[in-house]
């Protein structure tokens, strides 16, 4: 399974349509403080099904919608689309290529789509089950989160072992 691209519009500071292409190996994301690097990480977590706004540094699920700037009005919707190459069939789905889309509106309404077809949040989360990329997994380290791996209680660490088992 490989990530092919991530497309964002109206997501946090990514007001304008943005596309990020992934290839094999290591991609570095660089730039000044506050430019939007961690917001890209948030977009990935969000499109893969993160439901807890606190894990995206917000208080409300609508906090991910572009809230405006000095010169631009707030937007009414946030959308992130993730395109995956599943030709090695690692993911729990028959598709060779899979596009996951998530939207949220100011009203609080949400939409979830797999290859353009409406689905539930659960269907998206299930795709990543047992891949190491699922909820509580060890493949996502947010900013300032690495220390928590050690400061967590001994019992909390069991979750990592259960994900790997």
């Amino acid at each position, binding site marked *: *399974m*490989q*990530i092919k691209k991530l497309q964002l519009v109206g997501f*946090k*500071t*990514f*007001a*304008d349509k*943005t596309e*990020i*292409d*992934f*290839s*094999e*190996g*290591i*991609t*570095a*994301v*660089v*730039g*000044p403080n*506050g*430019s*939007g*690097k*961690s*917001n*890209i*990480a948030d977009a*990935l977590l969000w499109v893969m099904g993160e439901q807890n706004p606190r894990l995206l540094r917000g208080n409300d699920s609508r906090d991910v919608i572009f809230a*405006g*700037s*000095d*010169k*631009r009005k707030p937007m009414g919707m946030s959308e992130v689309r993730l395109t995956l190459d599943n030709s090695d069939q*690692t993911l729990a789905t028959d598709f060779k290529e899979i596009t996951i889309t998530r939207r949220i509106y100011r009203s609080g309404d949400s939409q979830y789509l797999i290859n353009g077809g409406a689905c539930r949040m659960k269907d998206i989360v299930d795709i990543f089950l047992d*891949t*190491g*990329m699922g909820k509580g*997994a*060890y*493949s996502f*380290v947010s*900013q*300032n989160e*690495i*220390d928590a*791996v*050690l400061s967590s*209680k*001994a*019992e*909390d660490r*069991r979750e*990592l*072992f*259960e994900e*790997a*088992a």
Partner: protein
Amino acid sequence: TRDAFMQTFYGVSDHFSRIFQRLFNGGSTKLVLTNPDDLLETGIDVIVQPPGKKAQSLSLLSGGERALTATALLFSFLAYKPSPFVLMDEVDAPLDGANVERFVQLIKEYSDNTQFLVITHNPATMEAAPRWYGVTMHDPGISKVLAYTVPSESIPSEIDEAIQL
């Protein structure tokens, strides 16, 4: 199941010893079940001994030693059960020059079979990536992304500054 958990525990423990010794250039580790008779409730204690030092409480470790230890533990899970994709947001921030080098060698090796998205301010980490996304904020509050394919003789700190303009 009990067997699956124990197999994971022993597997991850072996990798942890090896990867810790690689990142620390020596030393030793031990993972200990707090409650071996109750695998559904047990915690896992992490005991480490940096080279030449005594094993002490994790809390006494330095900022950089904790980050490196946590990184070794996460990579132990990845070694035991690979994930197709790994995201790391500024995990190299507390590391000194020598430790960053060892960290970079480690992710380079894992990147043969895993896609990495690494958010960083560190030139040594940037040098490990053949491809960069520079995130800028020319219009305040609005993120823009520029893709760079890195020529082999590029100087990361110059690009980092170029992004800041």
